[in-house]
């Protein structure tokens, strides 16, 4: 044996320490760290416990309809129990939502956004790549939202496709659906409904649609997203919310803490009023 790690034992309860359970215990029941080195080319990783949990929203947001297999999808039946577990677990102190989504089911997206907005633990969202359409309410649902400087968000109108009964009620329903989304976004960000609808109805920006693509800083300037930043600033914000006394250790230029705290309490007050 090359390396002796006394902490490793073959009699570990798999429910307690899943990382140490061999992948195929019928063949590898005698597995030791050196075997791990041989099989995976690396040493057994130290047991890491993280108090910040991450939810990635990737591809389409899948709701009532099962997406065909060529779509990469985030399923709400996976995400919602995870969010409930994060809220309930005493070991988890904060949640980070990382978005790179093209949109998807309106009701599933709003459900995820509402559950993030109503969590009591500090939440932060980070838009990387793209956070389009129904990804927008999920991005603004967190206590503080960040966008990377190259990420984009497409704001365009909701529309009905397929066979539509051409009556007034269909259009009223469509408008109601759009208002649900617009209201959520304006209530959880600094953009006004008027400005959001203006972006939504802009022509000349998209080749096959009306609407606007906002990039990084543009999303912050219109009030949709709180700050341009990356993993460092998002993590620093979460840490500052988990341990408020650590706020002095934050790097300068990574966000104005006084404004952060005020923003946070404003959102919380709003949630209490609802």
């Amino acid at each position, binding site marked *: 044996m090359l390396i002796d790690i006394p902490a490793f034992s073959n009699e570990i309860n798999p429910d307690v320490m*899943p990382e140490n359970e061999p992948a195929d*215990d019928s063949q590898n029941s005698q597995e030791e760290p050196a075997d*791990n080195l041989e099989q995976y080319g690396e040493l057994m*990783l130290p047991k890491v416990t993280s108090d910040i*949990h*991450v939810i990635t929203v990737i591809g389409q947001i899948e709701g009532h309809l099962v997406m065909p297999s060529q779509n990469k999808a985030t399923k709400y039946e996976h995400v919602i129990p995870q969010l409930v577990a994060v809220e309930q677990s005493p070991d988890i102190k904060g949640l980070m939502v990382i978005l790179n989504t*093209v949109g*998807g*089911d309106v009701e599933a997206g709003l459900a995820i956004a509402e559950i993030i907005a109503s969590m009591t633990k500090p939440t932060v969202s980070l838009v990387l790549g793209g956070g389009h359409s129904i990804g927008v309410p999920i991005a603004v649902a967190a206590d503080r939202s960040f966008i990377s400087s190259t990420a984009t968000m497409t704001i365009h109108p909701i529309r009905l496709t397929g066979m539509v009964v051409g009556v007034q009620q269909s259009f009223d329903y469509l408008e109601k659906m759009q208002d649900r989304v617009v209201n959520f976004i304006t209530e959880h960000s600094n953009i006004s409904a008027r400005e959001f609808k203006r972006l939504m109805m802009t022509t000349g920006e998209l080749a096959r649609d009306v609407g606007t693509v906002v990039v990084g800083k543009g999303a912050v300037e219109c009030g949709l997203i709180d700050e341009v930043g990356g993993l460092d600033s998002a993590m620093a914000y979460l840490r500052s919310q988990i341990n408020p006394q650590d706020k002095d250790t934050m790097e300068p230029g990574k966000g104005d803490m006084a404004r952060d705290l005020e923003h946070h309490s404003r959102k919380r007050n709003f949630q209490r009023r609802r």
Partner: protein
Amino acid sequence: MIWSIIPENVIFSGDVNGGVDNEKLQQVDYLGKKVLVRLGTNRSAQIVSLLSTDPADFLSPRFSPGTQIDIR
């Protein structure tokens, strides 16, 4: 209702019921975590993705996508 930048005819251009690939995907509990696996023959399965919020789980090679596992 779908609100996406991908046109609906592209989203639903494949088999609406999921196709052959999706039929073989199954969510199972493995080592106390939920994983999405592609079922193989004779109780074997290949991990497609790990469904966890704990970033530490993703460090474990046990759960890396492509790993063959034995499900009973």
